[in-house]
């Protein structure tokens, strides 16, 4: 969910994209035959769009093949941390959900043995790990931050998840949703983050629980997680379903 204010929400709105394409064609701002292709933007399912989606699926497979479960993302010194760490979401900072940590519970479902919900206190009893890593946004910018929390592998083992299942899906309190391949979920640097810096996650960075995955682009790091589930059916994601590459590994 790494969309900063610079990318307007309307940029991802299919209707507006179609309208813009009509304006585009009407204005005849042409670069020859290629101009016709600028309308192929993954939204209306014509032949070129189908090829683009197919290539994206092919890229998912290549990236899964490239992924090395033991290769660690670079880590940085505290002096390298980007201050302030940029806020990014598909909505403005004023719309960040207001969540009461005392009431909050993490729901767990799917291919797991123990489906009992988790409170913040209970998550804090699990082993914790800290990392200073680079968050890379799909827009191209990057920023270094410090996150701490429960190694996701530890959590998945604790709930008796089927570690041979293909996906882990996430549902968030801000209507965001996303999913990961199991290999990335089990990566040693993938953590369920409870803290940013030395303090509990502030609301703008995903209070009370955020997935931190330094081997993926920023939008694969859901914030305000309310539920997670283990499954063999690809759960997609908020941006993934609109055309961002699903794997989006780094």
């Amino acid at each position, binding site marked *: 969910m790494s969309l900063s204010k610079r990318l307007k929400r309307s940029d991802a709105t299919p209707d507006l994209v179609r309208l813009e394409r009509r304006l585009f064609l009407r204005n005849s701002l042409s670069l020859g035959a290629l101009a016709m292709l600028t309308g192929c933007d993954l939204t209306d399912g014509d032949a070129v769009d189908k090829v*683009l989606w197919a290539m994206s699926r092919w890229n998912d497979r290549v990236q899964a093949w490239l992924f090395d479960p033991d290769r660690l993302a670079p880590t940085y010194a505290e002096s390298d941390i980007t201050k302030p760490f940029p806020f990014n979401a598909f909505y403005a900072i004023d719309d960040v959900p207001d969540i009461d940590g005392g009431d909050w519970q993490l729901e767990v479902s799917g291919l797991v043995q123990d489906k009992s919900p988790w409170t913040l206190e209970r998550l804090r009893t699990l082993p914790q790990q800290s990392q200073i890593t680079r968050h*890379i946004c799909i827009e*191209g910018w990057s920023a270094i931050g410090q996150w701490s929390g429960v190694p996701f592998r530890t959590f998945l083992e604790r709930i008796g998840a089927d570690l041979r299942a293909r996906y882990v899906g996430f549902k968030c309190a801000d209507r965001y949703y996303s999913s990961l391949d199991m290999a990335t979920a089990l990566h040693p640097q993938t953590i369920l983050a409870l803290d940013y810096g030395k303090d509990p996650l502030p609301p703008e960075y995903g209070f009370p629980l955020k997935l931190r995955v330094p081997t993926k682009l920023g939008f694969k790091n859901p914030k305000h997680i309310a539920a997670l589930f283990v499954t063999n059916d690809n759960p997609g994601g908020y941006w993934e379903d609109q055309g961002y590459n699903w794997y989006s590994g780094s």
Partner: protein
Amino acid sequence: MAIASIDRVPKRRIRIHPLPVRIAHWVNAFAMTCMILSGWQIYDASPLFPFAFPRWATLGGWLGGAIAWHLAAMWLLVGNGLLYGVYGLASGHFRRHFLPLTLASVSADLKAALTFRLAHRLGHYNAVQRLLYALVLLAGVLAVTSGLALWKPVQLRWLSWLLGGFEVTRRVHFVAMAGITGFVAVHLALVLLVPKTLPPMITGRAKEEP
């Protein structure tokens, strides 16, 4: 007398560009255009410098569409580039057309070009052309390697490190694009100035000149 006798001989059509070079050229022209225009749209999502590319000059409609274009055309560009590289080395194409490349020959031909005394010989590249073709091929290699480093800064960590880290690599990628774009601008301007160079890139052949 020699000139007169040549004039009487009917002009022959000679082969200028072999088929693999022509195919690679046009596939590259399409792939590179897709890469640059979708790249400009991706750049505009978070501009590195205080300017953005105009919307009409971009491909993909929105960031997700542009990335889909960029990562699809990438395979065409890299596959075509590899085939061209293998052909260029194996057939002697690179050696015949781009070598020798010396400082003396470049400076002599550059002087001739600036004083409009540089002759255009069909099928033969002057030293300035040789230098520019060599440089744009290097820029292409740099664009692809820096692109791979941006795509996979963790899995290809060594490549990212070699290029100076993620943020430096973004600038390297931009500079490589700017170099290629500059080359394309000069290339197209020269085709407009010397239009007879265009048909041989399609048919492969041209009338022999005296």
